[in-house]
Structure formats: structure tokens, C-alpha cells
């Protein structure tokens, strides 16, 4: 291409972007003026607090104005749709990675491209999808569930949202290939065979994401503890609110070590004194990382346990089997999450003593997990009739996948067994069971439940939603089980190729992954098509509307 054609393309892009930006600016400033007038008419000087007071606790449909308003529900809408967007981006990366593995040798994409897709898929899915949708549902549902009395700190939430989103975008732009660990010294190699030329931007982007998440966490904790309605004591607070509390306490307490670690990594781009083999041990970074890296796994799951407790009784017609055990199991998971991080480093040389400690604590995680599962089963058991709607099917599939992923997880807690499956597809299968079944599935369930509210009274297409469920559940099961079996036999993960003897497992996983991808296309089509229909139902949803009184302190034993 000549310089002239480059120049022409550049000018066209600049013009189109410029027109789009000007149009947006025009729309935004017009809306802002209108909103300021409304606030003035309402007797407020500050537009933000006028709308926060006006909209507090009212169920809100999704609209573009969510980006101008900063009441908790608007912030929630922003997070929900941003995380859905990143889910589609990272998910399509995942499907492309699967398809590229049709041949044992990397033929469709190069190993460097594979590494970039791998890093982007993992990091964006965890930080931008799992954490994003948790924060979004927290912001969106909590004002109703705990009947907030005042909605302040909207500016902080808005700032946190933008920092977080820009962080996600910058991470995508960085095209880094250091996986989600950013382990030095690989991260220091700013070239395609190492961490990618933009890895420094990736580290900065991660810091952005962390700062955004931390600010948002502090604001939500403040909403729960200080702005809650006086009528709702902690002992009767919704289980979802409790799960969000535990999640955010985990986030705030474990994020700082990695934020510091990433800062040291960033400094080392200028002067590599940290985590280099000659100065201090590389293992130190892995400790800093996994002190955060294990809690984030629970952060991505706990809110969805809470949501399952929140939604399940609406379809069974019973109360949650045991409120106290549900909350205490989630609390125990929070405490244990900080004590088990060493099981990611069984093969890294922490020593037998520490290995035994972390192995023991990892086995103890079975107790709260089993309490949670039996609580779900108890809730289902006491039901006269279970309405098998799409959200309920996602929830039941989530329980199944959590049992499968949980059992594979317990097996890994054994130091000897861990030696065998370490770095194999077994691990991938284990956490995809849980992330696809619990995190993603329950997030979809919540999205379907909230659909009439978000779309101002439209219903999703039940048939397409069922297809979405079956394709997602079957595809994710096929993919994860193929990985688990193949990994047990020794198929190494995180590489762009594989030995031809693993062909059957890879092929099965590819079929599963493609089915999963098609399911999400159905989902996207369903959103677009159903939203275009005429409003047909009222805008209430079962999570917010039919919220039951939690049991009184006297009758906490549950079990109706």
C-alpha cells in the first residue's frame, strides 16, 4: 500500500470517528442540559443527587441514559452490559482457539496469536465478565433487596466504572501474551516471543481494572452496611447481599498484594530489579499473585451462589432450606479462600510442610461447598412442584456443573494427584465446569429474570432461550468433560498444539466449544429480537418484586 492510500484511509477513519464523536457530544450535552433543568426544577443544585434521590429503589429499564446518570441502578446497567460485551469478545476468542486446534500442529493461527488469544480470553473473562457481572448485578439488585435509604457515592461508582472499563479496553489493546498470571521474567520480554510488545500496557491495564474494582467494592460495601434500610437487620438480610459482602471483603483484602506486585513488575520494565533470578526469587511474584489469584476464583463464584439462593425459591415455591447454614457456608468459603492459595504452587517448591497445610485447607473447602449443594438440594426436595423455566434450568445445571467441577477440584487438593494433573487440561476442565455452569449459567439466569425489567416490559423468546440453555449446557459439558478426561491422561494445556494421540479429546472439546459458541449467538439474537417486540408484561421481576421476608431470628432453623 502506498502512502497516499494510507493517508486516504486514515482521513476517512478520522472523519467518520469525528462525526460520530460530534453526534455523541451533541446528544450527551443536550441530555445533560435537559437533566440539569429537571434538577433545577426539582430544587436541587447537584444534578447527580437529584436523580439518585428520584430514582432510588425504582426498577429501571436499560437505556443509554445509564451512562449519564450515576444512581446505583444505572451503574449496575452499565456494568451488566459492559460485561456482556466483554463476554462476547472473550468468548469468541475462546471459540477461535478451539477451532484452531483441529490439527495437532498449529496451522490455522500461529502460536503467538494463540498465546495472545489465550491471555485475552482468560483475563477478560475473569475480570471483565465474572467480576463485571457480579458488580453489575450487585449494583442493580441491592438497592431493592436491602431497600437502600439513601443513594450517595454515585460519582465514585461512575469513576470506578470508567477506570475499570478503560482498563479492560487497554488490556485488549495491549495484545499481551503473558496469560492471566503475568509471571516475570516472561513479562519482562517485551517482544512477540515473550509477553508481547505491549505487555507493559497490559500491566497498566490490570492496575486500572484493580483500582476500578476496589473503588466499586468499597462503595457497594458502604451501600450494604451504611445505607441499608433500618427495617432489615443483618440477620435477615438477603443471601445475595451476604454473598456480595463476602465477595467484596475478599476482593478488598486480597487485591492489594497483586496491585503491589504489578507495580513492581511495571517498575522492572525500566529497571529489572524485582523478581529476576539474580536479585530475588521469581517465586515471590507467584506468591503475591496467588494470594489474589485464589480469592478471585471465589469472587467469581460466590455472588452466583447467592443469586441461586435468591432465584431458586421463586420456582420451587418454598423458602431456602436453611438460611443460617447458607450464609455461614458462604462466609466459611470467604475465610478459606484466603488460606488455600498455596495449592496453585504445589509443584513450585514451597516445601512439604506448606504443601500439607494448603492441601488440608483445600480439603476443608469441601465442607462449605457441600453445605451449599445440600442446601440447594434441600430447597428442591421440599418443593411440591418445580417450575422448569429457563432460569431454573440454568440453575439446576449450575448445581450439576458445580458438583462435577467441585469433585475434580477436591481431587486436585491431593498433593500427589496434583503432581499428575498440574498444567494439564484437567485443570481447564475443572474450572470451566464451575465458571460455565455456576458463574456464566447463573448470570444468564439472572439476566433472563431481569429481562422484562431491563427492557421495560418485554419478554424474551422462551423457545430461543431454551435453545440457548440446551446448547450452552450441552456444549460446556462436552467441552469440559473432554478436557477433564484428556487432561487426566496427560494432555498439556495452554499450548497451541498437542500430540496426535490426544486427537479424540481435542476433537470432542472443539465440537463442544462450537456448540457453546452457537448457543451464545442464539442468546445475542434473542436479546436483539425480543427487545424489538411490543411491551407485553409489567416490568416487575421475581428477584426484586416477590422478595420474601427472611426468617426471623427465632425460627432460623429453616426447613418449612
Amino acid at each position, binding site marked *: 500500500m502506498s502512502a497516499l492510500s494510507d493517508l486516504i484511509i486514515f482521513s476517512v477513519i478520522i472523519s467518520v470517528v469525528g462525526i460520530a464523536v460530534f453526534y455523541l457530544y451533541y446528544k450527551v450535552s443536550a441530555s445533560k442540559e435537559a437533566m440539569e433543568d429537571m434538577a433545577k426544577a426539582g430544587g436541587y443544585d447537584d444534578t447527580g443527587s437529584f436523580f439518585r434521590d428520584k430514582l432510588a429503589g425504582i426498577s429501571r429499564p*436499560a*437505556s*443509554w441514559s445509564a451512562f449519564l446518570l450515576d444512581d446505583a441502578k444505572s451503574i449496575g446497567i452499565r456494568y451488566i*452490559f459492559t460485561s*456482556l*460485551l466483554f463476554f*462476547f*469478545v472473550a468468548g*469468541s*476468542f475462546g471459540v*477461535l482457539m478451539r477451532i484452531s486446534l483441529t490439527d495437532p500442529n498449529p496451522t490455522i*493461527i*500461529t502460536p*503467538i*496469536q494463540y498465546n*495472545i*488469544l489465550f491471555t*485475552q480470553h482468560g483475563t477478560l473473562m475473569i475480570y471483565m465478565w465474572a467480576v463485571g457481572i457480579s458488580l453489575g448485578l450487585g449494583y442493580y439488585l441491592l438497592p431493592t433487596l436491602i431497600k437502600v435509604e439513601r443513594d450517595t457515592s454515585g460519582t465514585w461508582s461512575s469513576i470506578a466504572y470508567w477506570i475499570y472499563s478503560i482498563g479492560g479496553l487497554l488490556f*485488549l*489493546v495491549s*495484545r499481551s501474551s503473558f496469560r492471566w498470571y503475568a509471571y516475570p521474567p516472561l513479562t519482562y*520480554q*517485551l*517482544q*512477540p*516471543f*515473550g509477553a*508481547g*510488545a505491549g505487555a*507493559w500496557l497490559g500491566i497498566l491495564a490490570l492496575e486500572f481494572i484493580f483500582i476500578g474494582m476496589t473503588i466499586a467494592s468499597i462503595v457497594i460495601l458502604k451501600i450494604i452496611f451504611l445505607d441499608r434500610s433500618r427495617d432489615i437487620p443483618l440477620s435477615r438480610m438477603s443471601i445475595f447481599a451476604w454473598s456480595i459482602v463476602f465477595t467484596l471483603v475478599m476482593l478488598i483484602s486480597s487485591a492489594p498484594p497483586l496491585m503491589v506486585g504489578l507495580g513492581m513488575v511495571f517498575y522492572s*520494565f*525500566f*529497571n*529489572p*530489579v524485582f523478581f*529476576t533470578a*539474580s*536479585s530475588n526469587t521469581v517465586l515471590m511474584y507467584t506468591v503475591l499473585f496467588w494470594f489474589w489469584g485464589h480469592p478471585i476464583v471465589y469472587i467469581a463464584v460466590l455472588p452466583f451462589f447467592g443469586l441461586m439462593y435468591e432465584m431458586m425459591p421463586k420456582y420451587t415455591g418454598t423458602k431456602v432450606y436453611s438460611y443460617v447454614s447458607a450464609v455461614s457456608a458462604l462466609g466459611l468459603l470467604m475465610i478459606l479462600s484466603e488460606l488455600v492459595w498455596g495449592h496453585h504452587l504445589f509443584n513450585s517448591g514451597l516445601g512439604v510442610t506448606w504443601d500439607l497445610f494448603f492441601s488440608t485447607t483445600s480439603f476443608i473447602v469441601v465442607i462449605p461447598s457441600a453445605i451449599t449443594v445440600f442446601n440447594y438440594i434441600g430447597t428442591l426436595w421440599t418443593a411440591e412442584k418445580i417450575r422448569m423455566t429457563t432460569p431454573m434450568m440454568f440453575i439446576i445445571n449450575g448445581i450439576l456443573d458445580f458438583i462435577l467441577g467441585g469433585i475434580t477440584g477436591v481431587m486436585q487438593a491431593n498433593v500427589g494427584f496434583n503432581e499428575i494433573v498440574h498444567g494439564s487440561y484437567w485443570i481447564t476442565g475443572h474450572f470451566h465446569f464451575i465458571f460455565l455452569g455456576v458463574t456464566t449459567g447463573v448470570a444468564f439466569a439472572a439476566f433472563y429474570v431481569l429481562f422484562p425489567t431491563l*427492557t*421495560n416490559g*418485554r419478554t424474551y423468546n422462551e423457545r430461543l432461550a431454551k435453545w440457548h440453555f440446551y446448547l450452552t449446557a450441552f456444549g460446556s459439558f462436552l467441552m469440559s468433560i473432554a478436557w477433564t478426561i484428556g487432561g487426566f491422561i496427560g494432555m498439556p494445556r495452554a499450548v497451541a498444539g498437542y500430540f496426535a494421540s490426544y486427537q479424540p479429546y481435542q476433537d470432542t472439546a472443539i465440537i463442544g466449544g462450537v456448540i457453546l459458541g452457537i448457543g451464545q449467538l442464539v442468546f*445475542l*439474537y434473542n*436479546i*436483539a*429480537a*425480543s*427487545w*424489538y*417486540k*411490543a*411491551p407485553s408484561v409489567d416490568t416487575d421481576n421475581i428477584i426484586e418484586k416477590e422478595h420474601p421476608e427472611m426468617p426471623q431470628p427465632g425460627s432460623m432453623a429453616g426447613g418449612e
Partner: protein
Amino acid sequence: MYGNKGGIAFAVIVIIIVSVAFAFVLSAPQQAGLKPPSLINYSSTNTTQLWANANGWNFGHGTTNPTLNYTTNELITFAVTEADGLPHTLVIAPGPKETGSYWTVLTQSQITQTIGHVSQGQFMFTQPGTYTYWCTVHPATMVGTIIVTPGNSTSSVSLPGSSSQSAIHVSGVFDNHGLGQINYDIVQTINPSISLLNGEKL
């Protein structure tokens, strides 16, 4: 019609962003410009051990600030050992004394301030003459002379043993800002007289 195109807009945004993300990520640079060692033209190899000490190069290890003798087209590996825990660099310029412009063989970041750490940088002279090597942090004490005499003409000599590829890998360095992409262009011709092995800019 009913009119709410919010979902359609969302789907369109998703499709656009996913496509752009695909195109952008898949167009990531695929190679670092690393030339295989077999393509470098040099006549022989030479490894020079240096101890970086603020009192002078090789202070306490034989002659302080030794005069180094090389021939042209000789692949020189400088193995610099941090001896005193202070920051040092290794730079080279043509002429008998220090100048304002020079080639950086090893940066302050590479010679970490850890006593005993060995960092390696590679260099090759293509023109005979007198050169100066020094440390930009301690230019008064750590300065010495390099005398380059004409050597054999270049013929493609393969490196001794395939394992020596790591020697070339080690030579890749950050540029002065640390943030740029590592340039692995071996034998980058900046000046017709001198080729630089680690891609350092003048």
C-alpha cells in the same frame, strides 16, 4: 413498528467490537526480527570478562581499565560482572576519549545492582581504529581503550554448537526507555563502519 432498537444496537455493537477485536488481536506482530545465528557474518568469536567497579573496570582483577584488542568482524561478547553494587553501564564510541554520542552495549537496567550478577552484551567492529569504552555513570574512573586491527574478511561461520543460540538471545536488550519493543535485529547497520549487535540506537 414498536421501535425499541436497544437490543439491536447492543447486538450490532457486540458484532462490531468482536470483529475489530479479532482483526486487531490477530494482526499482532509475529516476529521480533531475530536473525538465526547462522546468518550473522563474522570471522571469529571472542568473550571478554569485565568487572564493573566504580574505581575502574576490572579493579582488583588484574589490570585496571585494560586496553582491549580486537580484530574486525569479530563477534565480541562482553560478560560484565557487577562488582560493587553501584549502577553502571557499558558504552563504546569511536575515538580516543569519551564523546556525547555512543553505542550502549549494556544499560544500567541490565547490569543490575546485585553483586556477582553477570550480564552479557554483544558487539562487532567492522572498521579498524581506536575506540573508547566507558561507564556513563563513572566516566572519570571507568574508561579504557579498544584497539581494533584488520582481521579476516567475513565468511559465514556457524556458531560452535547449537546451544550457543542462547548467547544471541541474551544480547537482546531494552532500549534506553525500557518501554520500547526489544529490537532483535542482529547486525543493524547504523554507521557503515560499525555494526551493532544488540540493536542499540546511537
